[in-house]
C-alpha cells in the first residue's frame, strides 16, 4: 500500500548517480568485506535478516515441525484461545493456528517471493532493452508501464484477479504484473546512465556485441539498484498478496495463507479475536523484517543518505 513504485524509483535514482562509477573500478572482494562490515553495524537490518533467515527455514521445514496437523479438524475445540496446548489458539474448525502459520509460511512467502523474482526478471530485461536500444522498444515498454502505473497497485491487482478469478496462482500473476513496470523503469534509467559511462563507450568502440555488452558490461553496473528495489518490493508484495486474500480475491480459504487466515477471522472478531491478532502479527513482523533488511542494504550501499 505504502511502498508505491514511485517512491522506490525516486529513492533509487538518487544513489545510482553516485555509485555506478566507483562500482566499476573497485576491487570485488575487498568491497564485499567492507559491505558486510558496514551492514553488520546496522542492528535493525541484521535483526531483519535474522528474521528472514528464520522464516526461510520455517518455509522449508515448517510443516514437519508443526505440533499439529494444520488441516486436522477438532470440532470439540473450535475457536479456543491461546493455551499451552495451542499456543496461538484454534480457528473455527478447531485447527491449530500456530501449526497453520508454520505450514503456511512456504505458501505465503513463496507467492510473494516468486512473483517479485519473476516480475523483477521480466522488468529488468525489458528495462535493459528499453534503455539500451531506445526507439520503438523503449516507447512500447515505457507506454505499457504508464498504463500499468495508471492504477494504484492494489487496485491493479484486484482488477487482474477479478479477470483471472481468485486463487493463489492468479495472485502470483497479479503481484508479478505490478512489479514489472517499477523494475523496467529503474533499469531503463540505470541503463541509460551506465550506457553513457566511459567504459561502455570503450567496449562499444572495441566492437563488443550487443548481448555481451548488455549482460556483461551494463547489467552488473545496475545490480545494486536492482537488489535494493528487489528487497523493498518483497515487503509490499507480501502486503499486496495478503490484502488480496483478505478481500477474498486471493488464496483459497482452505489454504493456510496468512492473509486468507486473517480474512476468515473477520467473522469471528467478536468471539475469537486471537484469530485476528496472531496471523496479522506474523504478516506484520515478516513485512517489517524485509523492510528493515532492505533499508539496511540501501543505507549500506548508499552512504550519501545517512
Amino acid at each position, binding site marked *: 500500500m505504502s511502498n508505491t513504485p514511485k517512491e522506490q524509483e525516486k529513492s533509487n535514482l538518487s544513489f545510482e548517480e553516485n555509485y555506478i562509477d566507483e562500482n566499476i573500478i573497485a576491487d570485488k572482494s575487498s568491497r564485499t568485506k567492507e559491505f558486510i562490515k558496514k551492514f553488520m553495524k546496522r542492528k535493525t537490518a541484521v535483526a531483519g535478516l535474522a528474521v528472514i533467515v528464520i522464516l526461510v527455514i520455517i518455509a522449508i521445514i515448517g510443516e514437519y515441525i508443526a505440533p499439529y496437523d494444520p488441516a486436522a479438524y477438532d470440532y470439540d475445540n473450535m475457536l479456543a484461545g491461546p493455551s499451552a496446548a495451542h499456543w496461538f489458539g484454534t480457528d473455527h*474448525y478447531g485447527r491449530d493456528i500456530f501449526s497453520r502459520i508454520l505450514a503456511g509460511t512456504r505458501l505465503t512467502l513463496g507467492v510473494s517471493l516468486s512473483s517479485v523474482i519473476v516480475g523483477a526478471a521480466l522488468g529488468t530485461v525489458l528495462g535493459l532493452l528499453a534503455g539500451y536500444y531506445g526507439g520503438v522498444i523503449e516507447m512500447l515498454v515505457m507506454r505499457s508501464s504508464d498504463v500499468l502505473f495508471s492504477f494504484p497497485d492494489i487496485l491493479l491487482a484486484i482488477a487482474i484477479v477479478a479477470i483471472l478469478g481468485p486463487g493463489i496462482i492468479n495472485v502470483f500473476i497479479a503481484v508479478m504484473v505490478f512489479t514489472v513496470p517499477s523494475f523496467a523503469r529503474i533499469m531503463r534509467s540505470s541503463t541509460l546512465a551506465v550506457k553513457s559511462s566511459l567504459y561502455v563507450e570503450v567496449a562499444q568502440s572495441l566492437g563488443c556485441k550487443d548481448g555481451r555488452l548488455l549482460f556483461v558490461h551494463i547489467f552488473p553496473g545496475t545490480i545494486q539498484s536492482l537488489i535494493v528495489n528487489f528487497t523493498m518490493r518483497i515487503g509490499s508484495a507480501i502486503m499486496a498478496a495478503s490484502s488480496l486474500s483478505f478481500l477474498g480475491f486471493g488464496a483459497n480459504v482452505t489454504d493456510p495463507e496468512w492473509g486468507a487466515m486473517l480474512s476468515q477471522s*473477520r467473522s469471528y*472478531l467478536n468471539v475469537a479475536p486471537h484469530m485476528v491478532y496472531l496471523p496479522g502479527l506474523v504478516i506484520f513482523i515478516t513485512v517489517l523484517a524485509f523492510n528493515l533488511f532492505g533499508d539496511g542494504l540501501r543505507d549500506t550501499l548508499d552512504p550519501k543518505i545517512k
Partner: protein
Amino acid sequence: MKKITAILLTGIMMFSLAATANASSKTDGKDMEAKAPDNDMVVALQADATHLDPHVSSNGYSNTITNSMYETLLTFNENSEVVPLLAKDWSVSDDGLSYTFNLNEGITFHDGEAFNAESVVAVYERGLADESLTLQRTISAWESVTADDEYVVTIKLKEPNNTFINKITQFRIVSKAAMDQGKDYLAKNSAGTGPFILEDRVDGGYTKLVRNENYWQDGPTVDSLTFQVVPEDGARIAMLQTGEADIIMPLPAMDVERIQDDPTIIIDNNPSITYRYVTLNTEMELPDGRKPFADKRVRQALNYAFDSEAYAKVVFSGYAVEPTSIYSQNIMYFSPQTPYKPDIEKAKSLMAEAGFEDGFDVSIIVDNTSIEMKGAEFVKQQLAQINVNVELLANESTANAELTSAPLEETTVQMWYVNWGSGSYEADGSMRSILHGEKFPPSGYNTAFWNNEEFNTLLDDALKMTDTDEIADAYAKAQAIAWEECPWIFLGNDNALNAYKSYVTGISYKPAGEIVFTTIGLNL
C-alpha cells in the same frame, strides 16, 4: 363460486402445524423497560438491496426493504396462513380458474394516486410488456386480469394452479403513474401503499424510509426506518451492542453465545426456509468410465456417512435443523421422512455392494464465502470416512452460476454445495426447478441431472389439482421418492437469526422468521 376459506383452511392447517412448533424469541430475563434514545429505527443488514423497483430481479435484501414500501393483495402471517392485505377477501370459481378479489377502499399510493382494481390490471400489463421483470414468474400462468368494478378484480388462470395463492403474495402493487415513469423513477422513489416512504438512498450505504402519515391501517410509530449496509459480521454486532443499530439481520450463529446474556438484546431464532443440500451428478463419469452417482446405493451411502447433527453443531453452532425431507418444514405440504441416521458401517457396505469400497475422487463446487466453505469442508471430512475423496472448488457465486448453468453435455459440476428456499413458501417452487427432469441446466438447477418419471408426473399433476388433500398426497409421494432416491446429500435447514434491542416494539413476522415492519415502534 364458493368462498375460498374452506379450501384454504385445510391447506393452512396442514402446514401451520409445523410452523407453530417454531421456537421464537425468548424475552425472559430481558430488560423490557429499556428506552430507545430516539424515534429513528436503524436496521443493519449484511448486504444492500440490488434494486428498489419491486418488479426488478433482486436479492433477498431488496425484498426486506421493498416490503416496507409495497404491499400485495394477500400476504402470509407468521403462522403460515394466507391473510388479506390490500384485498378484503377473495373467492375462487368451482373450476379453480377464476379468482375474484374484493379490494379495500380509500387507499392511496405514496404518489397520491388512488388504489383500485385498475391498479392491479396495470401491474399485470407492466409484466406483459417487459419480460425481464420478475412479474413473469407470477403472471406466466395467468390468462387475464379484469377490473369488474372499481374495487373488484378477477384474475383468470390458463389452467388450475395450486401455487396461485402463494405467488399472489409476491405480486406487489405499484401506482400506475409511477410505473409509467419506469425503473429509474422507481429506483429513487417509492410508489406503493406500504407503511414507509422512500426518502433517501446511497447505493451500498443506506436506504432511509420515513413513516407514511396516510397509511391506511394501523402503522408504525417510528419516524423513520433506515436500512444500513454493514457487511462485516463483527461490526454489525458491535453496532447492536452500542445501540447504533436497533435490529441486525442476520446474526451469525457463532455470535449468539456472546450476546445472548445481554439484557438489552433479544435474539430471534426461527428455522428458515433455506434448505441446504449437495447435488450428486448422476451422470458423472470417473476416469475409468464408471458412474458412481448413477447407483442409488452410492448416493444413499453418502447420506448414511453424513452426520447432519454434527453439521448443525459445527457449521451453525447448533442453530440448524436436521433434514427430515427435501425441503424446509416451513414450506407448504411438508411431509416428514425417516432420517438417514449416520451409520458408517452401513454406508461402507452399501459402497462395497455397489463396487466402490475403495471410494473415488470427486470435486464439489461451493461459493467462496466463509460459511459456505465451512459447510463444504465438513462434507469433505464426512465423506472421507467412506473413502470418497472430495476436492473443494471455491468460486464467487457469480462464477458458480455460470458453471452450474452448463447443460449436461458440457457440465463440469460433479457435486454442488448449495441451498434453496421458496420465497412464496410453495411446495412446487421448492422442488420443480431443482429436481424436475425438465429442469436440467440451463433451464433449471437440477445439477443432479436426476430424471424420475414418477416424480415428474406427481409434480405436474399436483400443480393442476384443486383439492388440498389430493395435493398433499401427491407432494408427500414426491417427497418420499426423492428422499429414497436421494439425488442429493441432505444437509439441513439453518435457522434465521436476527437480533434486536429490547426497546423495539411491534415486530411481526412472516413464516420462517422474516421480520415485518408494518407496526414497528421504539419504546421511548
